[in-house]
Each structure stands twice: as structure tokens, then as C-alpha cells.
């Protein structure tokens, strides 16, 4: 039996005296598309920040492919094959689309900190970057500065930067936040396309996206996971309906 792609064991996080994430246990197996849902302030983004080492955990253990990564720094985790996107677009604003993507895959191609190689002569980096740009649909904007892209384009680039390095575990933090209906549909298609063969964990508010994409869903309420299961199981779970879906039905 192989280890799960991602495993959280009793992970907790407090800021001061406030506990945001409490004893979370989670297993995501390889190739699975896993969604984490929950009301605002449930600690979903915090959980992502813990996994990706943006914040240190207060207690508990995080494993990536069976290795303990709890005390590693963000770049070390990234080098081991976990990559993440951000809810608030977090790209390199004064670089072109092409350079954003190319920077994101330099490490994985082994170019590291080299200052003796000519960047434009690195054919593999250029080709892979162009492939990614093609896949995220920004080919026409290849040489545009990231800061001048539209919001939806920046979100696509955000996903491109996240995936370029070829990480096999990908965390997407609200990939469709702030998008219109049609933009959301395009984004879902994009995520489906690019996450082929990868382990995907996403935080998402749009239930259409969640139930359309996810193989399994975890529900986070007040920092605790109250249920994990297939979309059908989650829909049928009375505790979830009570805590979460019940409130959203009123909106629908």
C-alpha cells in the first residue's frame, strides 16, 4: 500500500488564544480531487496556509507522500512537489506572462540559482512555459506585463504559475472567486484539463464547481472537519445540511 499523497494528523493552529483549526485529520490519496468546503471563517484558507508552510502549525503533523513536512519551509515543500495558488492573486506583477510561468518552472528543471546560463538559451524552459501558457489560454497575452492583465486572465495566470513547476500535489485556493458565470465555467474546464493525473485539493465556495469537480469533499466548520465523503454522501449527510448546506439553500 502506498502512502497517501497528503496526510494531516491532528493539525491545530491558534492565533493567540483563538483556535482557528482544531485537530484536523485528512487523507488525500494520489490522483484524487478533493474539495474543502465550509462557511466563511471556518479556517479553510488557514488550513491551506498550514499545509504550504505559510504559517507554522501549533501542533500536529503533515505528511507529503509519506514524508513529514511539518517543519519544512515553503520553498522546501514546493521542491518536494507541492504547489499552491492564492485566493488573492499573487503573481509577479512587473514580469510578463511568459516570465511569470518560466520563473515558476526554473527550479524544477534544475536551473536553480545559476547565473552563468543564458535564460533565452534554455530551450526546455521556454518550450514548457509556452505549453503552459497555451493550456491556460493566455497565448495572445504571452508578452504582456502581468499587472496589465484583466482579473480573469490574472486568475488563469495564477493557476499557470501554480502548475508550471510540475508539482503532483496542487492546492487551489478559491480558483473561481470573483468570477462571472461564464468565466467560472471556463475556469472549471481549465482546472479539469490541467489537473489531469495530479492530486488536487481545493477550497471553493461555488457549490456547482465543487460538486462538478471533486471526487471527495471535506466539510470544515469552526476549524473542525465534520464530515468527509463522496459528493453524494456529503449531500445526504444531515450534519452537513444542518451546518452548511441548510444555510446556502436559503440563498438559492
Amino acid at each position: 500500500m502506498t502512502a497517501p499523497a497528503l496526510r494531516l494528523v491532528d493539525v491545530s493552529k491558534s492565533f493567540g488564544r483563538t483556535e482557528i483549526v482544531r485537530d484536523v485529520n485528512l487523507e488525500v490519496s494520489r490522483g484524487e480531487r478533493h474539495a474543502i468546503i465550509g462557511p466563511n471563517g471556518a479556517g479553510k484558507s488557514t488550513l491551506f496556509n498550514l499545509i504550504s508552510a505559510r504559517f507554522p502549525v501549533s501542533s500536529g503533523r503533515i505528511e507529503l507522500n509519506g514524508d513529514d513536512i511539518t517543519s519544512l519551509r515553503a520553498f522546501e515543500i514546493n521542491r518536494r512537489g507541492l504547489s499552491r495558488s492564492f485566493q488573492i492573486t499573487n503573481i509577479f506583477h512587473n514580469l510578463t506572462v511568459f516570465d511569470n510561468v518560466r520563473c515558476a518552472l526554473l527550479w524544477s528543471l534544475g536551473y536553480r540559482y545559476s547565473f552563468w546560463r543564458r535564460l533565452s538559451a534554455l530551450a526546455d524552459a521556454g518550450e514548457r512555459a509556452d505549453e503552459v501558457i497555451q493550456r491556460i489560454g493566455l497565448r495572445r497575452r504571452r508578452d504582456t506585463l502581468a499587472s496589465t492583465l484583466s482579473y480573469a486572465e490574472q486568475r488563469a495566470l495564477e493557476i499557470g504559475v501554480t502548475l508550471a513547476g510540475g508539482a503532483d500535489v496542487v492546492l487551489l485556493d478559491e480558483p473561481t472567486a470573483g468570477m462571472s458565470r461564464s468565466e467560472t465555467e471556463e475556469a472549471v474546464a481549465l482546472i479539469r484539463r490541467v489537473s489531469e493525473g495530479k492530486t488536487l485539493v481545493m477550497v471553493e465556495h461555488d457549490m456547482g464547481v465543487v460538486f462538478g469537480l471533486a471526487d471527495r469533499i471535506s466539510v470544515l466548520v469552526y476549524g473542525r472537519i465534520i464530515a468527509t465523503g463522496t459528493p453524494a454522501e456529503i449531500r445526504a449527510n444531515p450534519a452537513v445540511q444542518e451546518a452548511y448546506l441548510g444555510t446556502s439553500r436559503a440563498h438559492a
Partner: protein
Amino acid sequence: MKPPPLLTARRLLMWGGYLALILLAPLLSRSGYWLSLLSQVAIMTVFALSFNMLLGQTGLLSFGHAVYYGLGAMITMHALIAVNQQVVPIPVTLLPLVGGLGGLVFGVLLGYVTTRRAGTTFAMISLGIGEMVAASSLMFPAFSGGEGGLSSNRVIGKGWFGITYGPQIQIYYLIALWGFACVVAMYALAHTPLGRIANAVRDNPERAEFIGYNPQVVRFLMVVLAGFFAGVAGGLTALNYEIVTSESLHAYTSGLVIMMAFVGGVGYFFGPILGALLITVLQMAVSSLTAAWLFYFGLLFLVVVLYAPGGVASVVVEHRRLWHAGVLGRLAPAYLLAALPVLLVGAGVVAVVETVYRLMKEDSARLRVLGFTLDASRGLFWVAVVAAIALGMLLLRKVARTVSDERHRAYATLRQERT
């Protein structure tokens, strides 16, 4: 996909032109003044570009960059002294490299401390480290030469083919060629994986971590490499003047390089080259005209920070773009209109500064300009000056709007043509 060729026609033209310019410039005038100006510009170009590897490329504002320049100069001087005493056999031609290695070593030592933090804290720490090195240098007079500085003689033996580096023209060519090599190297460096990742760290250090890079390592490497080039610049200074004082690593020198890079423009690779040229020319030209030249420097710097934060380079690039689109001509009337109030304010400020300076220095407040006598001890003078400045400011506010409207219009046409 084949990688693009290293030497394109455009690049050959650009770099060939630059090389030709620095090689032919000494032929324009035979005066020693011209040659020493050119030497100084070439040295400052390297120094300012090395500073911009930090500010422009990595987003690190250093207030202590002169440390590497000054230490590089001192170490080169020690090497020169050793060569003179026949302790080590290094050809004078290669001595700037010794300065560069010195800068590199100190980059490793000091960079380890300074690059632990970024942003404003880095600025603060770089200042502190700079002060520390400057203060320490005086504690070790054997190394720094104390108050008098270090000096030696660059002419050693007969030299090859008559190249002894005795005449200024020979040392100029040594400086110019080293300078050109450094400029090419720094340009190349900006286009390597490290160079581009430095840009990424400048834009968004947090995200850089999430694509596998340790921003601290990136900053450290850039400081070390910038230290190398600053050290080479220091080495060239040592050979040029044959004397190095501790002022070369002082806060004043660090400040000067900030001004050069920023006035020139930190957003473009060639910006600091323009800045080094402009500031050095001003330094040598204006300082012979007025004792208040540092005041004008400060004022120029503030005006650039507030009104043209992209520096001369971005003004040039913008207008070149408009010129290519054929809309630059439309801006001419607005610019001409703006010239009057600018002159008015400028003249007013200069009149105040110059007369006040004379009043304090010589107790005679009279200043003769173009046949007029300005007398700061009379009330009428002050009324006139204050009125000129106030009127100029008022007009400037009005005209500024016209100019910016015209520019917006020009840019709008530019955008339309592009799509």
C-alpha cells in the same frame, strides 16, 4: 524550438556603438579635464549599475553600497603597493580584479547579515553596516591609511609596448575596457535564471518561495555579485587617482550612487548609465560654478522622486515611444508653455540660494547676473523673488494640467494604433 542567437544585428549595433563611443570619446578634446571626466564617468557607470543590481533588479535599497566600492579600492591599493614592493607579481592591468574579489569577499561577509531581512529593514541595516565599516576603517589605519588615505604609484617598470599607465589616456583606456566588460557582464547577468528570479523576488518575495526559491539566498547572491562589480569600480578608482581615502566607503558615496541610479532610472538597465553620466557631468561642471552645487543636487533628486520617479530613462523611453507613433510633435506646444513657469521658479530659487550664500559667506549680498545686480539686503529683492516663485508655482499648476491632458491624449492614440 531553437534558442535565439546570442548576437543579433540589433545587439551588435547597440553594443558596438557603445564600445565605439567610449573608445572614440577621448579624441573629441585634448584637455586633461575632458579625459578625467570620461574616466570618472566610466567608473561611476560600473558603480551605479552594480547598485542597480540591488535596487532595480532585486528590490533592495542599499544605503551602504559604497562599502564594497571603498573596500575594493583599498584592497586594490594594497595590492598595488605590494606589486610596487615586488611582493606579488600581478600585472597592473589585472588589479581591478583584485578589488572585485575584495568586494565579493566582503559581500559574502556583510551580505550574510544584511540579507536576512528585506524591504525597509534591509535599508536600515545596510546603513548601519555601512556606518560600522566606515567607523572601523579609521580604527585600522594600517589598512585604511587613516585620515590621509592610501597612495601608491601605478607606473611599474617599463611596461609592454609602451603601455605603462603613466599617461591619463592609457589609464582611461584601461578603465574604459574594464568598464565595458563589466557593463556587458552585468547585462548578461540580468538575463540568467538568477537575474530573472531576482526580479521575481523583487516583485513578490512570498510567491517566490512557493515556486521553490529561497528569497534570502537570491538576495544574498545578488549582494555578493553586486559587491564584486562595486569592488571592480573601486579598483578602477584606485588606479585612476592613485590615492584612496576612507571617504570612498562613507555614507556620502553611498548616497551619491543612489542619486545616480535613481535620477538615471532604476527601471531600465541603461538608466544608471545615464545617471552616472548626468550626475558626474553636473558634479564637475556645476561645482566649478557655485559652492551651493550640492544643494541643487538635493533639489534635483527630490524633483525626480516626486515628479519623474522612473528617472531620465523612463522619460526617454516614453517619449521615444510617442515619437515612433508620430505624436510627439503634438506635445511641443504644451511643453513650451510649461517652460516659462519652470524657468521662473528655477530662477527664483537660484537667486535666493546664491544671494543668501553670499550674504552668509562674504557679508555682501550682491550678485551680478547678466548686467543686473541682485541685492539680497533690500526688501524689494525679496518681494520680487517671492513673487516670481509664487507666480511660477501658480502657472505651473495650471500648465501641468494641460500637459498631462495632452500626454493622455497622445497615449490614447498610441494605444489605438497598437490594437
